[in-house]
């Protein structure tokens, strides 16, 4: 360790000792900058192998008696210096260390995480809002019968939606009774019917799911899309309850500043029916390109469950040996539904609906 400076080669005259100890002082300074505090202390002051110990023992031993005193004084000074360096604020040493360190501007590395699908994430957010309002999730099949998709929902027999131009139909259904014919559900509403046939009121369910229509694909339409519907049936459920529920849900989804506006609309399975607009989340209702300068964005359809739907439910319950539970004189309810694609597209400024179904990593990575 101490083969660097051999005292014998020099002498014990004052100038030589001054020079030697000057060198050692520099060494203390430089080592205090390059070593961690702990390593520095060990290096110089280590009880067995410390440099101060080793040097002083070696030098004092070999020094002539008259040189021991000046040597001792100088070693004491050196020791004080080392101790002072130890007590000096760490910043000087840390700053010096940092100077010779990593290039932190290089990109960080990570094990690439998987990316949640933006559409399904939005769907879960919507579902969560209704969970908090006391709605349980219910799911149903994507291949449905005409009964659940149309008939029980009060679609008249020759309603245009039932046409194969609008609905994707399973092959070889012609010979079956109309209500049994299988098709791809065009909305998640059949789950409302299934739930009410299964259980008496109160019903509070939220239904996320995939649906299909025989639509040509373009930037905003896809034959495959997703919906979240909800159903609340009980005694004394009113239109103002529907309004309050959706107003709350839209505020929960888009922020408390969002306003809702209800318009009369028409759906076969609700009456009264409404379309709901929210104040534009981009311009706060002032009018911008995104809301076509109207200040409003149309987001969902809803209404009070049509008594004819309740009648169809009780009829089917009777056919299954269940007691009637949906007397429209006592029971009211509301239902609502929204397209998840549209909401996700608004949330994220997505211009082409096709991105959702492409698995394109360049699209998905934006949501990492």
């Amino acid at each position: 360790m101490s083969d660097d400076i051999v005292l014998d080669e020099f002498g014990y005259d004052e100038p030589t000792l001054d020079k030697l100890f000057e060198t050692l002082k520099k060494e203390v300074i430089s080592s205090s900058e390059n070593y961690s505090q702990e390593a520095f202390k060990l290096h110089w002051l280590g009880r067995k192998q410390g440099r101060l110990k080793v040097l002083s023992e070696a030098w004092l031993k070999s020094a002539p008696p008259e040189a021991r005193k000046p040597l001792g004084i100088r070693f004491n000074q050196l020791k004080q210096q080392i101790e002072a360096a130890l007590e000096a604020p760490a910043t000087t040493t840390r700053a010096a260390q940092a100077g010779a360190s990593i290039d932190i501007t290089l990109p960080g590395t990570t094990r690439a995480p998987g990316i949640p699908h933006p559409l399904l994430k939005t769907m879960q957010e919507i579902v969560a809002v209704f969970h908090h309002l006391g709605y349980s999730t219910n799911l149903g099949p994507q291949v449905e019968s005409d009964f659940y998709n149309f008939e029980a929902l009060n679609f008249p027999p020759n309603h245009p939606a039932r046409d194969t131009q609008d609905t994707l139909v399973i092959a070889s259904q012609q010979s079956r009774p109309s209500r049994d014919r299988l098709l791809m559900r065009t909305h998640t509403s059949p789950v409302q019917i299934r739930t009410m046939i299964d259980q008496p009121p109160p019903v509070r369910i939220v239904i996320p799911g995939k649906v299909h229509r025989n639509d040509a694909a373009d930037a905003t339409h896809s034959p495959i899309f997703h919906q979240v519907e909800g159903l609340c049936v009980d005694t004394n459920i009113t239109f103002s309850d529907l309004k309050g529920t959706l107003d709350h849900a839209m505020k929960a989804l888009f922020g408390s500043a969002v306003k809702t506006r209800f318009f009369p609309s028409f759906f076969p399975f609700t009456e009264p029916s409404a379309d709901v607009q929210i104040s534009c989340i981009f311009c706060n209702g002032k009018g911008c390109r995104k809301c076509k300068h109207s200040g409003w964005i149309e987001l969902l359809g809803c209404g009070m469950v049509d008594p004819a739907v309740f009648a169809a439910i009780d009829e089917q319950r009777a056919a299954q040996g269940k007691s009637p539970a949906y007397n429209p004189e006592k029971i009211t309810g509301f239902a609502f539904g929204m397209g998840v694609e549209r909401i996700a597209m608004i949330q994220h400024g997505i211009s082409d609906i096709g991105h959702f179904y492409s698995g394109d990593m360049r699209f998905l990575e934006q949501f990492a």
Partner: protein
Amino acid sequence: MKILTNWLRTYVPNIPADDHQLADDLTLRGIAVEGVHDLGPAADDQSNGHLFEMDITTNRVDAMNHYGIAREAATIYNLPLLPLHTELPASTPAPAFPVRIDAPHLCGRFTARVLRNVTIAPSAGLISDYFSLLGQKQISNAVDASNFVLLGMGHPTHAFDLDKLQGGIVVRLAHQGEKLKLLDGTERTLEPDDLVVADEVKALALAGVMGGYDSMITPETKNILVEAAWFDPASIRRSSRRHLLHTDASHRFERGADFNAAPIANHLVSQLILASGGHAEGDLIDIAIPATAAKTASRPSINLSVTQVQRHLGTTLEDTPTQSALTPELIYQYLTALGCTLIPTRLAVQLEHEMIADGPVFPPGYFSDHAGHISLVNDLFAVQLPSWRLDLEREIDLIEEVARVYGYNRFANTLPTPGIVIAHPTAAAEAAVRTRLLALGFSESISSTFASQQDSDLFATAGQGTIPMENPLSDEASLLRPSLVPGMVTMLAHNLNRDVKDVRLFEQGQIFTGTTDQVSESAQLSLGLTGAVPATPLHTAHDAPIFELKGAIESLLSLFAPAPLTFTTEAPVWLQPGRSATALLDGTPIAHFGELVHTQREARKLRQPIYLAQLDLAKLYALPLKKVTARDLSRFQAVERDFSFTFPDSMQWHTIATAIHTLNIPELQRLTPTEIFRDPKGKSVPPSHYALLLKCVFQSNDRTLREEELTTWWSNIITTLTNLGGTIRAGEFTM
């Protein structure tokens, strides 16, 4: 549909709102104005007003004309709606024009009027002005009159050149194969359920859809028969679809026209034509089928209870603590303005308090006053429905009208009592699987629900059946997907074709099997991986992707209650033999994974290998989620020992691990292969052999392990592996 505000205002003068306000007020009441266009000043310096682009829902066919929207405006502003003005000059006497309805179930009403010595000329005046503002084509005064009435009050009419008719009018079903040349110049071959307006000899018009070419009004026409009728909606829809003719008339009739509007429309058209000359001859012929009238214009009245209105609609912003803003007076006002006749059943009866048997439960329509008396108030109305509102049939329809006219946004935002939330049975498992896959670096994706015949043949599980579509979106989507894998292959290819070379995707979705009578849906998971996967000490870069998939499957299984998971190298045809495997849960397949079969990679022109996995989620979700019981951590030091053995290539890890586990050393906490090494030169490891570095961790829960125990276990392991055909290379012992 387009509406001129000036025209609209002729029916409701003094609307206290400008056109923009009017548009908003209509829209908020369901009569949607999609666009408002300023029409600038007229020649007389008056304003031309505005043109409204309307979007009327299909149930409100009555509002698809100026008068219908005027009625809405009159209702909103509580103003009188002027009656349609129908004053005809006196007609010359003549015998009744013969009209016969042979299909009374399809033609509910038929009106006809003969006009003589008319002058066919271009339209002038108001019709011409309005038509040019609307962009409506002008043809001649006779044809324009019909269009003007349609736009004005919504009832379709038709004018025949009377001199082209042979005998009187017969409304009948067409004969099989009967030919009819229509106004658009096309000749149609009719079916026996097409309804036609005919004369004694031939079909003149496809009823309610389009008039005939041969009897149309021409500049030479002198005498006209004006028709206004009511046709059965389903019949008109059938003919309109069959002949691919969607006309203004068919649009109106197939949604249910106004039974009582026919004579009015006939009057209006006749009046407009006669304005250019000529005279009416004889009386209006008006044949109405009573059975149809009973189903349309003269429907039985329905009851409307004020209590029911309030029960369905709830709280308004203007309610007082004691009274709903939806008073009987307001309901009466709204519905009367819409054309209903309301007969209040005002039977103010007072009953003594003691007559109430079971406490304060009152029949609908009764309420209790402060003195404890209950009264039947002005609660119930008998409502006669207007002939133009076939969409109104039930009490709830009237309740909707009240809500609509009152204004949806004048209702309060109230909340129902909340329910309790019951978690969906598979929700927790689905979330766990999703979270784990995301953590493993797989991104979530959604692929097509459909598959091509070819993909279906390749990827379907044999014997499970596939489901073809009757009206597929395309040839590529002719069946419901029998597997998620073809969709995953498509998504990986999509990325590779765009030079995105590192892809990890998963999809949780439904697959469809069975028959077209009985479709089964079950949940499946697919994984897709392509791109560089770094080699590990155990796996070459070539094999690493397959083991990443295996690792993912094992990781998913680890979320659930432990069940025996084994692997075989048997795999379905879409996977490359030797580079694929099947995972078995309790001995039955739960997943297949590996590299896409090379023939498919070539066929799909994929630039690099892709790796796929398919996992039966239904089977996975049948397992309960793992419930963790934590074990105590040992206070005693663990001892790690590394062994290096050489084995012939035929020796599988499973055999080695089983042999060591058979030694049954409870203190052997972990046995891990840490490195596999092959020497291509055959020097450090002989050819057809590999060197395996093996780590054993020993630990006891109740003592520090003694050197002798360790030596015994170590030598037992060495003996076992030597007996398997292994050769020890080195054994390092580290504390």
